[in-house]
């Protein structure tokens, strides 16, 4: 089963990391991802640019374009993973490992209903 793991964290906080701290966290996360990647179970991974670069389209009639992210929350959606796991427990284990590498914030684990791997080259 495919799960999306949505990463929420306080952007002010992650934005206060020094370059070295940021690199150290990314390095630790890469180790966790590697385990799944080696088993061919790691799907697309994305780290999103800051919410200040976001634009929201409200699908009213006519649609309205708003500056900023969809929701004003204390913690923001900063990235996501798609992973192939047997069950929720396995997905939670992966999320726990990620959490140990990058404490604070939260992961939302959502089963994927439809998945198209897409064809975008990097």
């Amino acid at each position, binding site marked *: 089963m495919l799960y999306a793991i949505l990463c929420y964290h306080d952007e002010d*906080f992650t934005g206060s990391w020094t370059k070295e701290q940021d690199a150290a966290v990314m390095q630790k996360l890469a180790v966790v991802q590697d385990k799944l990647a080696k088993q061919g179970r790691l799907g697309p991974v994305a780290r999103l*640019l800051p919410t200040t670069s976001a*634009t929201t389209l409200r699908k009213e009639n006519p649609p309205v374009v708003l*500056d900023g992210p969809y929701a004003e929350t204390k913690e923001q959606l900063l990235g996501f993973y798609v992973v192939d796991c047997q069950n929720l427990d396995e997905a939670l284990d992966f999320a726990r490992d990620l959490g140990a590498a990058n*404490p604070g914030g939260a992961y939302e684990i959502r089963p994927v209903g439809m998945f198209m791997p897409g064809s975008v080259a990097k």
Partner: protein
Amino acid sequence: MTDTAWIDAALTSARPQAVGALLRYFRNLDTAEEAFQNASLRALKSWPQNGPPRDPAAWLIMVGRNVAIDEVRRSRKQQPLPEDDQAISDLDDAEDALAERLDGSHYRDDILRLLFICCHPDLPATQQIALALRIVSGLTVKQIARAFLVSEAAMEQRITRAKARVADADVPFETPGAVERTERLSAVASMIYLIFNEGYSAGGDTTEARAPLCEEAIRLARLLLRLFQSEPEIMGLTALLLLQHARAAARFDKDGALVLLDDQDRSRWNQKMIAEGLALIDKAMRHRRSGPYQIQAAIAALHARAEKPEDTDWTQIDLLYGALELMQPSPVVTLNRAVAVSKVRGAEAALAMIEPLGERLSNYFHFFGVRGAFLMQLGRNDEARVAFDRAIALANTSAEAAHIRMHLDRLMRDSQPRGAKAK
């Protein structure tokens, strides 16, 4: 991340909001800052044991306020009221309620007020920057002194003086009206740009000490943009800083000498920063309310989009500088435009364009550097040498001087008689 690194990052990120709120309570910068310091000390003790609070800023505001109130009581030599004391030391219950009240309304104006106080028009630019870095960013006096290449004592004095001036200035604490808010926003934007430039104009030898200023300016710009999501000029400012800073790694060679845009190794440009800058300028353009920051960001974007120097759209850059000249007439803008003109219409036209600026820019390093380059392109080497000599005399950093010396060396080589070349 270690505990202390984590707490450092949390304190830094909570700082503008916490000091801003404490300033609203106490209406005094020193008291607010001291209250935040005290709260930070308690956080260093409490957080590793009890785990981080859900809302670090709310925790720091609460504790900072209580400690300061306690101190006022103590200094008045009054007996504290026992029941009151109990109520305020019970942090866990109160934290939720406080966090609730902090959300939304005050938060934005607290931070804006704090930033605005630091760039009060009564303060000279250098004091504005120093004060903002100390109060908002929480850099130590030592770090700031190092960035400005002055002694710690001198910087301490500069900050103390700035604080005294701000205290006399009487910035109102009521929620600002729309016009006032716009004015504050624009003053704060200039101050952030000043901080960035202080870091950006560093020479090769001071780059390391000053690079953090660029990063801090970007952090403050993002913070401001998060508070004012729909302001195209704040998008433009943030984009401008990101697009310029993206070139940081390519701007100096290994000896610390300045590398001009045309000669930079573009593979060393930071593509993530460029992507964010381009996204922001895209967003800003949609508002169709142009402004100086957006135009400068658009110019930086044209450079960032060119994979090779020859791909640069100089015609468009010339037009954008033309628009900037109308909006913000200044000889420096015209000088920059002339560089674009030299690429589009040649050095002759560019030289004619900057000739009238000579009087107003007679002490400006870049004027003579650019003039010398145009003259050199036209083969007027003797005149070029005079301009370059003047540029060296006016250079602000050793990197600038070294760059001009390189031109002079080339002129020297070119003017040597043929026989001597073989040597």
